């Protein structure tokens, strides 16, 4: 579904990612672990089209999307749930979801946006209760649900999730990951960047370890979870 080959990207003159390659198969859940500053966010933002890579290729469903805009990538089914959630704080929950479907509402209004919103509300009933509340007034967990719901409104087939557990209580993290696993069970492909490595590896079929902008290890989620080097470096065990 997603194939990244030798991706080089960074900010201004600073190169952060050095020839990163990885793959996500159809319906697969892949996780990306790495310490602070390893380049996880930079990688996901480059995949979403927010940063132009200086070298390398990104293929989505076999097509080269390296030079496509964020909006064109959304149309093909690639959506990002950003680090820190970044909901539109002054806007209501409903308006946030509507913005998630922006590309389907502008310039032409497509069918099915209202039913997709009901689907998101069914997935996260707490959002339905707060539909007219300003997103900035939601709890951290609710904002994460909204950020995921907003991405789902674009009807993605591959969801890029950047640290969905960041700053949340363990119970809320469990809840969010349960929903993520459910989405995956229903066929959604996932690429999840996480510092909460044990949680992420447990729910992922495959894992990549990123260090200083390069992939240093990869393997089945369960294998990495039991690998001594990974356990020592990223799981604090």
């Amino acid at each position, binding site marked *: 579904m997603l194939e990244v080959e030798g991706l080089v990207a960074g900010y201004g003159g600073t190169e952060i990612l050095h020839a990163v390659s990885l793959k996500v198969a159809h319906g697969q859940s892949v996780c990306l672990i790495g310490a602070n500053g390893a380049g996880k966010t930079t990688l996901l933002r480059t995949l979403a089209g927010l940063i132009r890579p200086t070298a390398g290729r990104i293929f989505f469903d076999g097509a080269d999307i390296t030079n496509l805009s964020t909006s064109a990538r959304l149309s093909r089914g690639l959506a990002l749930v950003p680090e820190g959630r970044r909901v539109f704080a002054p806007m209501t929950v409903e308006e946030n979801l509507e*913005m998630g479907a*922006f590309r389907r509402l502008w310039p032409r209004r497509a069918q099915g946006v209202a039913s997709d919103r009901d689907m998101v509300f069914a997935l996260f009933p707490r959002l339905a209760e707060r539909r007219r509340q300003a997103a900035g007034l939601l709890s951290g967990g609710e904002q994460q649900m909204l950020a995921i719901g907003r991405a789902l409104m*674009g009807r993605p087939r591959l969801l890029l999730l950047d640290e969905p557990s960041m700053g949340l209580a363990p119970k809320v993290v469990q809840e969010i990951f349960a929903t993520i696993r459910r989405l995956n069970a229903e066929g959604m492909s996932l690429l999840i960047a996480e510092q909460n490595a044990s949680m992420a590896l447990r729910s992922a079929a495959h894992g990549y370890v990123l260090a200083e902008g390069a992939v240093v290890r990869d393997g089945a989620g369960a294998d990495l979870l039991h690998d001594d080097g990974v356990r020592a470096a990223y799981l604090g065990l």
Partner: protein
Amino acid sequence: MQTTTALLQVLSSGIGTGAVYALVALGFNVVFKSTGAMNFAQGEWVVMGGMVTALLIGTFSSVGLAVVAAVVLVGVVGLLSERLTVQPLKRPDALVITLVTIGLSIVSRSLVMLVLGKKPVGYAGFSGNTALSFGGVSIQSQTLWIIAITLAFLVVMHAFFERTILGKALRAAAADREAAAIVGVNVGSTVLLSFGIAALAGALAGAIVTPLTLASYDQGAIFGFKGFSAAMLGGLGSLPGAVVGGLALGLLEAFGSFYISSDFKDAIAFAVLLLILFVRPSGLLGRADIVKV
């Protein structure tokens, strides 16, 4: 009785002026929301609105058509200004955009002077230069036009920002540019659109106030200053704040000139601006923004 009549008259003229300030303040706020910058060219668009209407009135026999054409034309000037000066910026932060608009205002003023001339121009009110009398209170018919047109424009703007997907995209980009880009909004286009809307609002203000004041190429700075003060008074970036700030400033000026002297009219805006900056910098309607957890 005599004084009540006089006060009502001052009140109506204050509301009329206040409506004009509200439109200019709205222009400031729309650009501020989308870029974080103060748009110093805002006042020049007010002048253009009046001067272009004056020019077109000869061509289009109808005042209404001339006003619409002038406002649309100046709206296009706003869009072009953004494309030529803001969009090409490599690092478009608020301070840089603010500085660029200072240059834009100077160039706009020179162009207006060269193309439209140095002489103040004017035209009759939309119902002629008539005054209506309400139980002894005489009100300029143009003041009523100003109030009605401003109200209609505000209703349209409110509907645009609250009901249309494009308006919501503008609000979303103002709240979080990166998040807006993530959902597929072209953030550069939202800045372009905000300059267009600001120019429309400014031009409309100029087109409706010119019958009462005349328009001249060098008035941009004072209009800009009044609009800026009104925006600060109401709360920078707040659209209802533009209305409240505009009306409050218009009324303060009207009553100030009545009780003190009309020579102090422009000083009143400055005094109000200083007072609000000293006492309540977030403005009358300003509140601590809703922050992300």
